[in-house]
């Protein structure tokens, strides 16, 4: 892959810009030809599984072969049967035990998925969800790619309070609908001009900018005539038009960069939920392609929601394992299949990690440039919301050190948000804190 180069040294820019969150969208930066060093992209992915994981114990105290955790004791990783798919990735993964979001504890297992990537204190002080870790990164560094971020799911949309179908939020009360149809995702990523010539696209965008300007004007006029409560709701609309204006501007700038040439070979874009493995791999493939073409660097993928009873996800365990019951029940019933179900999910994620690792980039590979979190906010059978199953992979070149199971229990307890702080640092977002963080993982994982 051809490497991209940047006109502006990002670190310089941030230092000069003061507080990170006060940074503008950085639209003013020009896309110069001259290369100022060969910075490799720094990426972040958050991926979510639902209905908990299997955590059985054996009578003799040895580690259970079907426990989601690969081994029992903190220290170098060994892999049991459940986690076996990650054995070839031993030096690129870590498991973190004892982490959770305090803000999700009171929500119940079926709702705490809402805050997995945000850490918002929805059962306490915050009425709405808050900005997610990927969106904070996108806000600061998203301008470097054609798309600031990519938000994927398997059920689509935003879901509602307590039953999110997306991991990503722009900010309070601003969930981002996840995309779940492979064909649509492909088209939006790689065929954004719908076959139109570049000159026409530019002319369209220019016109669109002036029209949106007028739309904004008119909507403001309308807002002024409404009652107070309606005015607030209208603010949501105005925000969206503003965001659209910015996108038009951004798209115009990007028309000066060639589109990535990706064809659909090897992608079954019409795949349905009836074939879970095909579908899940297709989603991972699209995510991989988005990163590999440097179309985006920050992505979330909600593989399962905590309320899937109205979707085909409810039948996944049945389609995959022939399990006689709902995917949800596999968590509550803990039959022998539970371990196999975890193992199946592990296989899909390992497939993605291996694709990243097998793609050379700079002196190493894509996985080293990408920090990937995989886990759940609904750890096990009892609707409990503590001690999430968390795996972190990749990002070695961004400072992450792997190969161990870390335990954050007892007096070593820290918030999960500390990991998010380290992930943000890894992608050059120098935040001091995120959600309820008390520090970072510096000295442990990085």
């Amino acid at each position, binding site marked *: 892959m051809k490497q991209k180069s940047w006109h502006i040294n990002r670190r310089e820019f941030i230092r000069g810009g003061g507080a990170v969150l006060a940074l503008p969208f950085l639209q003013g930066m020009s896309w110069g030809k001259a290369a100022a060093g060969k910075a490799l992209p720094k990426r972040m992915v958050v991926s979510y599984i639902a209905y908990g994981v299997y955590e059985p114990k054996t009578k003799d105290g040895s580690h259970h072969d079907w426990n989601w955790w690969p081994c029992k004791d903190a220290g170098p990783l060994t892999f049991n049967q459940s986690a076996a798919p990650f054995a070839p990735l031993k030096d690129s993964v870590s498991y973190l035990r004892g982490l959770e979001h305090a803000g999700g504890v009171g929500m119940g297992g079926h709702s705490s998925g809402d805050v997995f990537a945000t850490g918002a204190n929805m059962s306490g002080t915050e009425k709405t969800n808050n900005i997610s870790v990927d969106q904070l990164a996108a806000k600061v560094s998203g301008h470097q790619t054609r798309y600031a971020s990519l938000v994927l799911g398997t059920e689509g949309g935003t879901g509602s309070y307590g039953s999110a179908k997306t991991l990503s939020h722009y900010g309070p009360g601003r969930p981002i609908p996840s995309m779940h149809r492979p064909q649509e995702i492909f088209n939006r990523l790689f065929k954004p001009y719908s076959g139109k010539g570049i000159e026409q696209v530019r002319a369209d965008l220019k016109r669109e900018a002036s029209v949106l300007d007028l739309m904004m004007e008119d909507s403001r006029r309308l807002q002024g005539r409404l009652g107070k409560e309606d005015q607030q709701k209208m603010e949501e609309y105005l925000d969206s038009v503003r965001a659209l204006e910015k996108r038009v501007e951004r798209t115009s700038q990007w028309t000066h960069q060639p589109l990535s040439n990706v064809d659909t070979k090897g992608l079954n874009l*019409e795949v349905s939920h009836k074939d879970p493995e095909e579908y899940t791999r297709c989603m991972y493939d699209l995510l991989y392609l988005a990163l590999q073409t440097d179309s985006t660097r920050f992505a979330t993928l909600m593989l399962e929601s905590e309320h899937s009873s109205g979707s085909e996800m409810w039948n996944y365990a049945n389609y995959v394992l022939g399990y006689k019951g709902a995917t949800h029940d596999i968590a509550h019933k803990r039959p022998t299949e539970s371990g196999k179900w975890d193992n199946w999910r592990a296989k899909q994620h390992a497939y993605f990690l291996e694709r990243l690792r097998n793609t050379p980039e700079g002196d190493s590979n894509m996985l080293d440039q990408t920090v990937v979190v995989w886990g759940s906010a609904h750890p096990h059978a009892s609707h409990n919301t503590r001690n999430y199953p968390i795996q972190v992979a990749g990002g070695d070149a961004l400072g992450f050190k792997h190969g161990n199971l870390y335990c954050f229990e007892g007096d070593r307890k820290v918030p999960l948000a500390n990991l998010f702080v380290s992930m943000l640092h890894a992608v050059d977002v120098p935040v001091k804190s995120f959600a309820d963080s008390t520090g970072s993982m510096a000295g442990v994982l990085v």
Partner: protein
Amino acid sequence: MLNPKSLKFFWGIATFPLLILLWVGKVNADTSFKGEVAPFFEAYCVKCHGPKKSKGKITLHSLDGDLAAGQELKRWELILDALEHRDMPPEEEENQPSAEDRAAIITWIESGLRDYVTKASKVALVTTTRRLTNFEYQNTMRDLLGFELELAKDLPVDPDKPYHFNNTAEFMMIGPDQLVRYKEAARKAMASAIVDPGKPEIHRVSSKWEHGKPGKDGLSQAEIGVYQGPGVGRKTVGLKNWPKTGEFRIRVNASGNFPAGFREVPLRLVMGTDLRHDSGSGVYREVGIVHLSNTPDNPGEFEVLGRIENIPVQPASKHRNKIRPPSITITAQNIFDNGELNDHRKSAFDASWSVKAPRVVLESLEFEAPVAAAWPPEHHRRILFESPLRHTKTGEYAYEVIKRFMTRAFRRPVAKDEIDHYYRIYKIYDAEFDTLEQAMRETLAMALISPQFLYHTVIDQAAATKPYELASRLSYFLWGSMPDKELFNLAASGNLDDPAVIENQTRRLLADKRAAGFIENFTSQWLSIAKMKTVSINRDLFPRFLYTVHVGERRGQEQLFRPTIRDYMHEETVGFVGELIRNNASVMNIVDSDFAYLNEPLAVHYGVGGVEGLKLRPVTIKPEHHLGGLLTQGSVLVGNSTGSAPHPIYRAVWVREAILGDKVKPPPAEVPALSDSAGDSADGAVSIKDLLALHRNTPSCYDCHVRLDPWGIPFERYSAIGKFQPLVPSDKVRVRGFNHKLDKTFAGYQAYLKSIYTEEVDASSRVPHGPAVDGMQKLKKYLLKERKAEIAENVIRKLMTYSIGRELTYRDRFEVKKLLQLAQEDGYKLQDMIVSVCQSPIFTGTISKEE
């Protein structure tokens, strides 16, 4: 019959005891907070809801008793409900207040609330601005454009929450990603609505089949046997060319070949991508069903129409260096279904079934597009109307075009500055596009992403009058769409807020076919039945319920690309509620009724004889069918089962939420799960009732489950697939699944089941504050005897919430009570109930100022 006068009349002679209490509440100055209320709380409540314990996060000790200040009113209403429904103090608590004391406290709280609401309603009571739901967006576009264009499927999926309507402001948000999709949908809509100048090229494809000698499989070339998965029971016609937009027509020459005893066979036409049974991939759209009863010597010509834009296209693909161009496949299926398709087969496909069952004889199929009575089509002329102005004064013409379109799109007259705004936009496009058509498409698309279009009609006082808001509220409630001409005219005349006019309009809207959308959307959200479709059915235990694929990779999985029994169950429930509305029948029919709404597969499933064909209709039922009302419908029973066994907790939650209108809290964090769900009990482990009893014995689970479980137990004689099943195996026997070798046929398996089903199902429980009920019939009896008011109030609240798009609050309490009173006097007639909702000040937005 239902007008405010009668409302007052009923109010005056209120016989409902609570209302009387309430009426005297104002003069009842004897009860005071310090004197009676606080001591009452101290005596009966604070032990659990006070400084030491705060069960359910409710505390009472800190309330100061000043309701007029408008503080803590939500908490007061919770307390009021708990006292009124005798939920609190808990039944098993020994220390209970006397009926008089309870009533006095209820009166005191209620009158306090009432005083506040009366005062506050003069200040403000408005429905909050909210965007159209995808359902409403889709319908509005249909009625605005004059043809059905599937647009909502490209919008982000709307939020959805069990037992909630999603049309509230809280759910209906707009973000940038939503707006991008609206923009794309609007452009797509305008590209179809306005056609290019000049006559279009017509695309035609036709196929013929000989109905001569039968072939090897016993079928002639023109015959289609019953659709059963891979390659069986369908004919296909491929399209390589079609217009980008426009209406298409398919004409078929078809009849049925009926073995003795059959009279009807359904031919279904679907269009889309390749339907691949091996991988399960393929997307399609049903374009029509013809129920054939004519024979081959009397062939009939049938015609279906649709929009080509709605049809999924198989994209171009490369195969061994050959490029396969994009294509569309028309598939003709014989979807005959008598509920027994799985019964006769062994492991592989049994071709003999196709000969025994009725066949479709398809002699020809012809596709043509675009078709239109005149060109340009009517939907084009509706926007770009015929006028000499168009060529002489293009600017004036464009201005008028914009004005007419906006008036309809905004559902109200538009102000001059609003038209000027879009005219300015038009000028931008006009400068760059060659034709008026192009410029107008873009301009009008912008009107379709305006807040005035996307949000529910909020009257901008500069532009129009309030009745337009009411016109929209009526049409969005009862059609999920924009008002029609008659409603617009009434809004313009200023007569719409007349209660008699509202009544007429409500009944007219309900009689229109557009009401079908409302009934479906309302019913499925009210009863939360969507999840029924994805419950994973145990096919070993229920080998007949789902039609399975018998060969290939997906062997044993459900047959795809055909309507299933679960689709019919959904239609059953929606159709049942529709019948009640159309016939203005008592709402108590939801608990029990003398009819069911069935077609043949459903009738066979429930064991009702004499129903033929796939069309659903009301069928008179007898007690031995164990049907009637909503409680025994498959959509409810299957959706609230595990797929293997009944799930009494789900079913209990359903009764309380959907029928009684309680809010059931989800299991809290940190409680141990019911160690196992019901699946194992079906396999013969421990009975679910015992499991629940164990669960209840855990103190942290007790409080909730003691109020929950008793409601689900009486459902236990209805299986996971919604069949009446009074006998189960004894604890020691494990049921085995269907086995081809042992059972041969479904009848064989049934005989086996009969031989081991020896134990009576225990379905008795004592409902909270009620008697012991044993089974469904007793439960229904109890509900109809003791809970009528709650059931009616719940339906009123559900209708009201849906109609105004917000949750009801303590402020609405007294209006709801009035409507309940009215319904009681009226025999709980459902259509009348809807009329009274539409006449209520909560709905019309004109809260009475006289109180």
